[in-house]
């Protein structure tokens, strides 16, 4: 039987100074068990998505730490794929189920990012780039800014085409009670925000956030019958050169294209069936790439279609993107992001998304990227 997502929980995303990494893990595991009325004894394994615990806090051997909190002895695996750690954890969890190792697993993702100085978090994050990129002092805003410059020049767009993504995702985040930023922004505000790495301004960049999210994935017919749930139609992981230097194109992410093609192929649905997606907008340019690389829009079209706000929920178009607020407004606690994306789809597909609910949806897609495109995870869910 296919894996099903039968429960979701997320903590608040934001600057959660009073909570540690494992406070957040404990909170969300307790939360998802409570939401689903499932006892921890029914869980066969836990997959934990986390990137920076080892780097920022010297905090590794996470599996045993989670076991210690809950006084359990089941297998617990830490999964790391930079910003795609959460998506990778879900992927491995459903593979674990499909391989017959267990029936019901809990996937948790968490990151604690705001306790350290900005230079330390920047340095920690860039560990996910190539050695050459690190040595020349590059940062992720810098890498995405390079790609943005090429894209804007190639297709004759300007910064406002990028800014539209931030405006849309903040409008969505405004409706999400657990989002880091629950406020709307205008194109003008985005354009006037201080430059981080030209052409990306502060409001083109997702924030550093604390947060945790969790899902319960199962193939147990009894749980599925009792809880309903959303089917994981396909989960695909693809990789690419970690360094921009070795890429044939700076205006697309090959890993996204490969993972998406495989996911659509396996799920046997076509792109127009997808009416809702959570895509990886770590920077505004990344959402433009995502829309083209996932095959929703043609190459070079995304800038134009973004500024028409085609994927804004209130415009009721055929495809709504990032109702959670995306990484931009919902926040980006790295290890939790991929899980939150799938959780948002779960809420939408089960009619639990409250003020941001999109109607009449059958399929959703989540797209989670590691680094500047070295890893991509694409997951398709269906009712």
């Amino acid at each position: 039987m296919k894996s099903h997502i039968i429960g979701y929980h997320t903590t608040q995303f934001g600057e959660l100074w009073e909570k540690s990494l494992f406070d957040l893990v404990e909170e969300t595991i307790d939360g998802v068990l409570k939401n689903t009325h499932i006892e921890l004894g029914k869980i066969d394994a836990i997959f934990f998505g986390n990137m920076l615990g080892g780097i920022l806090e010297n905090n590794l051997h996470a599996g045993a730490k989670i076991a210690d909190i809950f006084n359990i002895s089941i297998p617990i695996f830490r999964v790391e794929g930079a910003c795609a750690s959460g998506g990778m954890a879900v992927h491995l969890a459903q593979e674990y189920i499909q391989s017959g190792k267990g029936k019901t697993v809990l996937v948790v993702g968490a990151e604690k990012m705001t306790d350290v100085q900005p230079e330390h978090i920047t340095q920690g994050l860039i560990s996910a780039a190539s050695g050459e990129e690190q040595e020349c002092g590059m940062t992720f805003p810098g890498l995405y800014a390079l790609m943005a410059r090429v894209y804007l020049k190639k297709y004759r767009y300007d910064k406002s085409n990028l800014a539209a993504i931030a405006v849309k995702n903040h409008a969505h985040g405004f409706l999400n009670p657990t989002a880091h930023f629950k406020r709307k922004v205008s194109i003008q505000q985005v354009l006037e925000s201080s430059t981080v790495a030209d052409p990306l301004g502060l409001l083109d960049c997702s924030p550093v956030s604390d947060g945790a999210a969790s899902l319960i994935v199962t193939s147990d017919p009894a749980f599925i019958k009792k809880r309903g749930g959303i089917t994981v139609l396909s989960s695909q992981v693809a990789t690419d050169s970690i360094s921009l230097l070795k890429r044939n194109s700076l205006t697309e992410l090959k890993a996204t294209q490969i993972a998406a093609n495989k996911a659509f192929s396996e799920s046997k649905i076509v792109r127009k069936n997808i009416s809702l997606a959570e895509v990886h907008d770590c920077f505004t340019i990344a959402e433009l790439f995502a829309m083209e690389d996932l095959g929703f829009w043609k190459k070079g079209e995304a800038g134009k279609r973004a500024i028409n706000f085609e994927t804004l929920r209130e415009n009721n178009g055929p495809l709504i993107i990032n109702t959670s607020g995306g990484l931009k407004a919902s926040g980006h606690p790295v290890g939790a992001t991929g899980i939150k994306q799938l959780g948002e789809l779960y809420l939408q597909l089960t009619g639990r998304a409250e003020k941001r609910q999109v109607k009449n949806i059958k399929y959703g897609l989540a797209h989670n990227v590691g680094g500047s495109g070295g890893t991509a995870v694409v997951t398709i869910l269906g009712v």
Partner: protein
Amino acid sequence: MKTGIISYGYYVPQYRIRVADIASVWGKNTLEIERGLGVKEKAVSTAAEDSLTMAYESSSMAMKGQTQPIGALFFGTESPVYAVNPSSTILGELLDIGNNYLAYDTQFACKAATGALISAIALVESKQIKSGLVVASDKAASRPHDALEYTAASGSVSVIVGEKNPILTIEGWESFSSDTPDFWRREGIKYPSHGGRFTGKPSYFKHIAGSVKTVLSKLRYKPTDFTYAVFHMPNGKFPVQVAAQLGFSTEQIKKSLVVSELGNSYTASALMGLVATLEYVKPGEKILFASYGSGAGSDAFVFTATQLIEKKRLMFSKKMSEKKYIDYPTYLKCMRII
């Protein structure tokens, strides 16, 4: 007789650097920074000045005409001239106050001196000493390109606490403290570190609210009972926001908001706001005063002006207006960064 502040003095260095001149070095948007911090320029001490020389200037001013023996000299700073060796005794020597005084230096980020002020009040009230000199002086350093560079400033304020002829009586005080590491500097490290926005809500705002609410409740006052309020000024925005949160009006705090022109002289910052307010306060009017020190704590005081303020009033605004602008390289020389 009632314990109070019987005299005060201040020192504001002549040099100023504009926020615009710092912002342009780093390619930052000046308007955005000025708007974000509520600071347009800051006072800079010369390379020949340090926390001790400035303390001497403000203390000499406070000592003028004072006849009461100084039984205690407390020196609050976070930029002491020696890591080990008290500034308070050097200052005592320079002021020629004899040897029969209790001296110590205090350290508690920007509230090092207001904690010492409470100690001085207690010594006077318990009749252990006739009067005590409390000094707040800093040559605040910041790492170039750090957000602190726009605000970290130099300056000194001295107050003398005694029973005889106070210009401000002390109605009461309250302190609020917790382990909240929002700003720190390790031994041997040149520049302080800070926790960005963590310096706000869980730090500055929580602690000032804690001390102010308690002192108001204890003394049964409400914000409208005060003509003026003074809050520590790490920038121009925080005191405005904390005032609003606690129910004080813009009118009550505006005389104290000298940070926009002087920057944040750390231990002296809140007291700069107090001495700026003393230029305008009338006999009988009340002042709510609250310091904040990272790490963290806040001391809140209720002062009432006496008739003597008219006689001993100092024109702080005149001192503020005596200024000369310097460029960024000169600023670096003044701070001994180059």
